[in-house]
């Protein structure tokens, strides 16, 4: 489903060129549960941005669901993000002035979906993450764990191919982290493809597969030992 072939990413900083990714080949299939790990500066965030179509590679091909994204225009990439990718960010990135329901409805706005249908699907997504009774709360009326669950609902509402989470537990305490991770586990069990970027071994341990990035290269790619089911 995700096919990265020889991905190179260069940044120009002043008169210096930084090589963030130096030829990466990855294949991630449907319903995989992948942890992308590595220290900061390793290139894992760049890799995530490319997978999430927020950024495009300097060289190489990225084929998402059989479609080569390297040649897509900015608006086509926006449509891909809208349809295929569900983002979950470390600092939640909810819209502060909107209610939980409105936040979750937002991606569907860009699909030109009628408001009634949008509302129904957003409410359903919030129920799935256990916030069926918090629809009209604003982010500042919710706890950190609840905010992140709103973000997960927002990522899922459009039924994306990939759930892409960037340090999803980075701003949460360990008990809430465990809650969020069990939510991811459950989603994976329901057939969702999940990619989590993290530097915490505990979090990576939830996943079935670990890809370790260092200095722009993939240095390790292995299936985790089966966890006790």
């Amino acid at each position, binding site marked *: 489903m995700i096919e990265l072939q020889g991905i190179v990413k260069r940044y120009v900083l002043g008169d210096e060129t930084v090589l963030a990714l130096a030829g990466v080949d990855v294949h991630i299939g449907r319903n995989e549960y992948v942890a992308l790990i590595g220290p900061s500066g390793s290139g894992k965030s760049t890799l995530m941005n490319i997978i999430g179509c927020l950024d495009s590679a300097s060289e190489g091909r990225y084929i998402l669901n059989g479609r080569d994204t390297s040649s897509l225009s900015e608006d086509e990439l926006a449509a891909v*993000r809208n349809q295929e990718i569900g983002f979950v960010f470390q600092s939640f*990135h909810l819209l502060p*002035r909107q209610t939980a329901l409105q936040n979750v409805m937002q991606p569907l706005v860009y699909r030109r979906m009628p408001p009634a249908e949008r509302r129904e699907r957003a409410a359903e997504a919030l129920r799935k993450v256990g916030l069926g009774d918090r629809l009209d709360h604003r982010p500042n009326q919710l706890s950190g764990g609840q905010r992140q669950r709103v973000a997960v609902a927002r990522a899922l509402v459009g039924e994306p191919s990939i759930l892409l989470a960037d340090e999803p537990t980075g701003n949460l305490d360990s008990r809430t982290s465990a809650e969020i991770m069990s939510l991811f586990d459950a989603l994976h069990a329901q057939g969702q493809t999940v990619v989590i970027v993290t530097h915490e071994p505990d979090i990576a341990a939830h996943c079935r597969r670990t890809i370790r990035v260092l200095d722009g290269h993939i240095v390790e790619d292995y299936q985790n030992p089966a966890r006790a089911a």
Partner: protein
Amino acid sequence: MNHLAEAFNAALASLNAHRLRSFLTTLGILIGTMAVIAVVSVLQGFSDSISSQFSDLGSNTLTLEAKNEQENFRRGQINRLSFEDVDALRFKVSGIERVAPIISAPLGATLYRGRSVTPQVLGATEEAQDVLGVDTSIGRFITASDERNSRRVVVIGTDVRNELRMPENPIGEFILIGREWFRVVGLLEKRGEIFGFSQDNRVFIPFSVARSLTGTFERTFMEVSFTVTNLAEVNQVKERAMRTVRASRGIEPGKPDDFEIKAADSFVKQFNRITATATAVLAGIVGISLLVGGIGIMNIMLVSVTERTREIGILKALGATRRDILVQFLLEAALLSLLGGLIGIVLGLLAGMGIASLIPNFPPAHVPIWVMIAAAGFSALVGVVFGIAPASKAAKLDPIEALRYE
């Protein structure tokens, strides 16, 4: 359409979140619009009242009157039109439709049951009704038969009726004008005031009667209004009339005219020119104030885009296209400006009404609907124009950079 309505709501919500700032931002637009509506309403009210008073005088009406130098007038050397001049116009000039001579007959007080009033007494023929556009609300005007038979009949203005405390319908009553009794046959339509002078304090009697009653008077005054058959030929007819009247008055070649022929609507035209000039000057000032207001909006929108960089990044990550972001910020700017414009229109109307009511004898303020629509549309346009730069800045933001923005 649905999508636009939604973007509209989002823009409204965003402005609502910073109410004070939004209000202060749009103050420039508000004051500019208010100023234009206030001044336009006063000018238009004034202009409407002038035009409606003169609207009865069509542009095909010309007026012949004797020229009198102020000095000569004081010395008692009064230059008058003669009845021969009237006949010359009537019979010797082609292209003239109707000729309506008007003679003023200073016959003195008018009495009715012990009450007295001194109106302007005018002698007129039936033609005056069409040429000068005088109409009666009750009864009839002077007729050709009144004129032929020199009947002692009178058509009175509403002020005369009211001051003499005559019945609501004064037809058939007798009034004494000077030393003659006249029977009232008609009541003139109310015309109101021009510059504070009542147009209803006058009476019309048949021309022939006025002529015979004032035959021995030194100070009668006559002018002749006439209409041309074909409006396109008005200048040629005027030329012919000038030549004929010169001949009838025996003015030798090379000597200046001692009379003039004026277009009846020249005053209205002149007034309209003044109004148009005032409006153009005003439009310039308003243009500048809206420009300043627009810059204010652009400034705040740029601040707003910077403040909301992360929000824009989030929206882009969720799949908003450049166009989605552009439309959202443009709508916000347009709405901000439009709201200022709408409040400005309302306040401007109130201000115009206030100004008009503070000046005595001033006609009520009036703003044509199209001016209000244009003002609202123009203020929204200012928002769009000055919103383009901030909105395109927002649309062009790189999503990764924007998401990282603290």
